[in-house]
């Protein structure tokens, strides 16, 4: 069995009783297992194919950059976009809470802090799939390189640390596209804290996982929360063959490694790059 098939097996496990503390009724009978189509669905999706989508239309590349806040994701994406465009590739980006459908609604829910964890998880899923259908897939159909600033992995990790069943979340994202490359910029929570604090002179409620009552102390809440998230990433890194990069290294060193791997994927031979004046401030 290939790794990919094993992966599929894991994500297609029949639904076990949900471990949402409040979901206690008789488990609903599972629908008949009708495996994913024979048309290469598994190559493009984790489980089920998206409704009304033909995978053979994909000509672009989906490249995911994951990592906690302060890991350098946005910096690297800005640099990669410039590099790819200078190499003649069309680039589209996606990220969390950027959908036209519910992006702003999630911002409002977060600001009001008046939402339960499951509802929030499902709003993020709506946001994710709206971007997949209206932004990512159209780009991939036209041969564009999509740089995703975080993906389902962050969303799954956030749900799992809040007690939502892992299988439930895997099932929810069974129709997510399988990225061509997934990078994980791994940093220590302490480093991330320092970088984030420097950026905004503050740490947000959600970044610190304050909803989880881990500590009244902002610093410790941040460290504990991000450590929990990091553990989930360590689990997923193996399952989903992440390319792990040391996010503590310099911007230029991380960028070089990214360019090499992406260059291999896209068939770009020479991956030399120096940022333009507009982005030079990022290069340190």
């Amino acid at each position, binding site marked *: 069995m290939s790794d990919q098939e094993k992966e599929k097996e894991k994500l297609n496990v029949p*639904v076990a009783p949900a471990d949402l503390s409040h*979901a206690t009724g008789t488990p609903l009978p599972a629908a008949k297992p009708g495996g994913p189509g024979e048309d290469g669905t598994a190559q493009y999706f984790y489980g089920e194919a998206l409704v009304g989508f033909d995978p053979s239309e994909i000509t672009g590349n989906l490249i995911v950059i994951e990592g906690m806040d302060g890991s350098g994701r946005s910096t690297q994406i800005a640099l990669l976009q410039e590099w790819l465009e200078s190499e003649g590739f069309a680039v589209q980006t996606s990220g969390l809470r950027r959908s036209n*459908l519910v992006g702003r609604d999630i911002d409002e*829910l977060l600001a009001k802090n008046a*939402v*339960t964890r499951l509802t929030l998880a499902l709003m993020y899923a709506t946001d994710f799939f709206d971007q997949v259908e209206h932004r990512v897939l159209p780009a991939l159909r036209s041969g564009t390189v999509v740089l995703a600033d975080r993906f389902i992995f962050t969303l799954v990790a956030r749900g799992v640390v809040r007690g939502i069943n892992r299988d439930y979340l895997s099932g929810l994202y069974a129709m997510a596209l399988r990225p061509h490359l997934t990078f994980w910029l791994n940093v220590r929570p302490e480093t991330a804290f320092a970088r984030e604090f420097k950026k905004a002179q503050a740490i947000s409620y959600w970044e610190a996982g304050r909803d989880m009552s881990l500590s009244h102390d902002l610093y410790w809440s941040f460290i504990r929360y991000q450590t929990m998230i990091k553990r989930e990433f360590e689990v997923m890194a193996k399952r989903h063959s992440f390319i792990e990069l040391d996010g503590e290294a310099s911007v230029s060193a991380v960028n070089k490694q990214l360019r090499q791997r992406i260059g291999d994927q896209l068939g770009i031979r020479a991956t030399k790059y120096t940022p333009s004046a507009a982005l030079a401030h990022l290069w340190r």
Partner: protein
Amino acid sequence: MPSRAYPGALIVVEGTDGSGKSTQLYLLKRWLEIGGYRLHFTEWNSSPLVKSATRRGKQRRLLTPTTFSLLHAADFADRCERQIMPLLQGDYLVLADRYIYTAFARDAARGCPGRWLRNLYRFAPVPDITFYFRAPLDVAVNRILSGRPKLKYYEAGMDMALSYDRAESFRLFQARILEEYDKMVDSDSFVVLDGTLPVNKLQKQMRDIVASKIDLKRFAPGLPAPE
């Protein structure tokens, strides 16, 4: 049957548009209210939390089968976590006008995979009684078309491009939904009622079934919820 973690009871009505289910649930609710029972009534798609998103998505026609389904699941999760579960735990009778089976039927009719849908809603408590009001397609569709001539875009299933004519699209969509409901009768233990019977006869059947399946005394007036 596995033991459950709440003392309350959940009664659900399901059926296609025009099957008479809302009228019947209203009459059941009146009967229980007049009797003084502790109850709460909840409707599909009524949470203020995601209302603006749903409205925007519908107005601008941004919704696909997947996001349509997810947004309604988010809405239901909000109601489930904040109303239905706490009330069931607090020993209430909860009456639901439409429940997860509406999503199973309607979203499957739009092409969403059944297994994905079942997973999506598996946090929902299983009802004590699910009444399925079954009316032949023509009866149900004519009830709607005669009383409510302006069908909305998604309501008529126009997003599936079944027909350019709204009424015809609605009919084709409802036929698919009816088919999906019928598939769940056995697997989800629906109590099937004939939606073409006179209102008062149907209500009598419904009340008899509720009285026989649920220990109503537990929700009776003068009895506070047990500790």
